[in-house]
């Protein structure tokens, strides 16, 4: 198959599998409401903290109130998209290697990573996160009277996509460690927790943390860098965004493949 035909096939499969997954939204309505409710509560708390801070000072590290809200909202877009399509990686990290069930992704005629992810396409929590993020971004943009240039409009979806890929790659990387350690849940959890920092201006943090979030676990490129570009027109880091995305995705795939190759199905 040509690469184009392969891509078309996977796009078609994603569409069909997502359609089937919509069942889950109705099947597990309570889960969905709980997940969405919990998420909303978290975002409200984050906004409350921001509110409180801005009652004391007009600007933080050069960021206005609505700019910070925009950043927070924007950070939820890649996070929501990532969660909508890669939530099964949590299960991989937690138990799929341990209990031997990973085998089933190796006996389907599709890429094992796709096969794995497809079991939780359109994960409800992710849908909620994406919608909340979109609403918050839109609300903040309205208040900022934000007007994007043509280039910014063009790049914005690409930036969200790159952010999603970075998050998915980080998750794949840490979840794949399970192939060596049978369970990598604590590592994945810790890495994911650090991602919460990405919803605030990086200028707030100590340079070492900023460096960590930019170059080691590059969450900065999922929200701070694109938001700085859209709000303030900062382009210095943009080329790096694409380099980091490509590099990280490749690294994650290499580690994934190494892991799959050494997979030994336990038990009978």
């Amino acid at each position, binding site marked *: 198959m040509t690469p184009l035909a392969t891509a078309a096939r996977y796009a078609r499969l994603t569409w069909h599998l997502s359609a089937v997954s919509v069942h889950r939204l109705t099947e*597990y309505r309570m889960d969905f409401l709980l997940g969405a409710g919990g998420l909303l509560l978290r975002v409200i708390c984050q906004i409350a903290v921001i509110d409180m801070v801005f009652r004391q000072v007009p600007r933080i590290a050069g960021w206005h109130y609505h700019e910070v809200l925009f950043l927070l909202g924007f950070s939820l877009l890649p996070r929501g998209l990532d969660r909508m399509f890669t939530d099964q990686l949590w299960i991989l990290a937690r138990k799929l290697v341990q209990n*031997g069930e990973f085998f*089933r992704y190796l*006996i*389907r005629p599709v890429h094992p990573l796709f096969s794995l992810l497809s079991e939780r396409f359109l994960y409800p929590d992710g849908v909620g996160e994406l919608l909340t993020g979109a609403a918050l971004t839109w609300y903040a943009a309205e208040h900022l009277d934000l007007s994007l240039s043509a280039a910014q409009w063009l790049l914005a979806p690409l930036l969200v996509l790159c952010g999603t890929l970075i998050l998915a790659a980080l998750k794949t990387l840490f979840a794949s460690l399970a192939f060596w350690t049978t369970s990598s849940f604590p590592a994945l959890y810790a890495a994911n927790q650090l991602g919460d920092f990405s919803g605030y201006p990086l200028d707030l943090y100590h340079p070492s943390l900023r460096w960590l979030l930019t170059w080691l676990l590059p969450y900065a490129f999922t929200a701070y860098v694109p938001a700085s570009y859209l709000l303030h027109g900062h382009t210095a880091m943009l080329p790096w965004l694409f380099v980091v995305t490509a590099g990280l995705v490749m690294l994650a795939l290499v580690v994934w493949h190494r892991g799959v190759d050494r997979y030994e199905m336990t*038990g009978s």
Partner: protein
Amino acid sequence: MIVAENLVKEFRVPERKPGLLGSLSTLFSREYRLVRAVSGVSFEIPAGVKAAYIGANGAGKSTTVKMLTGIMSPTSGRALVAGLEPYRERRRNAANIGVVFGQRSQLWWDLPVPDSFRILRRIHDIPDAVYRRNMALFRDLLDLDALGNTPVRQLSLGQRMRAEVAASLVHDPKVVFLDEPTVGLDLMLKEAVRRLVNHVNAELGTTVLLTSHDMGDITAICDRVLVVNHGEVVHRGTMHELLRTADTRAVVFEQQGERDHAIDLIEKGLDGASAQPLDGGRIKVEYPVARWTARQVMSFLLDHFEVTDCVAPEPDLEMVLRRIYAGQVVT
């Protein structure tokens, strides 16, 4: 259709040392022990054959099946399934094969069974006609509709197994690997699964490799047998040949006369044979194959008793296997 050439699989198992100091030391330097699960297995299964892969626990059956399905790579040696090396070309191989691991699920855990089939149809690109034909077959034989819209994770083992077997056959695979496919099924459903596998084999020429602890599965499905012990094939041939390796066989008959006397007469007349009463007035005569033929035993019985019924049942597979595992017979 299935070829194994000197398949070897070794696992590295970390050695644990006793005591607290011991477990601390394993944190820094690990010592491994090599465990040879499969040692140089070779066999060939032609297309359309239904083969049983039999062996005691730990004989390396599952490990071999995992290499043949592409889940694991062999340490050395080579496997070919429908002309492909499964662990090198997993995706292309996956299109050719169907797999059931009785202890594990391959269905979509939190979706109802019909959704799993909708997905399988897409990822295997199953033509409409094939999909409809197979789903009708599964509905008929396995009563799949009865599973309704319950998510797979809430199904009982028996309900799930029906769906697992159907899922392994829905795309008309060239080869189907069945590892304990009737685990948790009642007699009726076991029958149904066996009938389905035989039907698919007869209609489509599907090659079957079955591993099971259920002798009923093996005798009802398989025409060829490979027996593995300690990671090596110790017997290969047809089911008939395997059963012929039995060193004792039996004749069961029914007669009019007095039983104790009859038993006495048989054990005296047929050197090395033993006789025991069964229920319903029947008598089972076990005789060493090396000394007597079934024909000789039967004519002896006909000469001495008023025989009203007489059968020579197939040797007991379990007994034959026990002898092979014990290393008494290597063929």
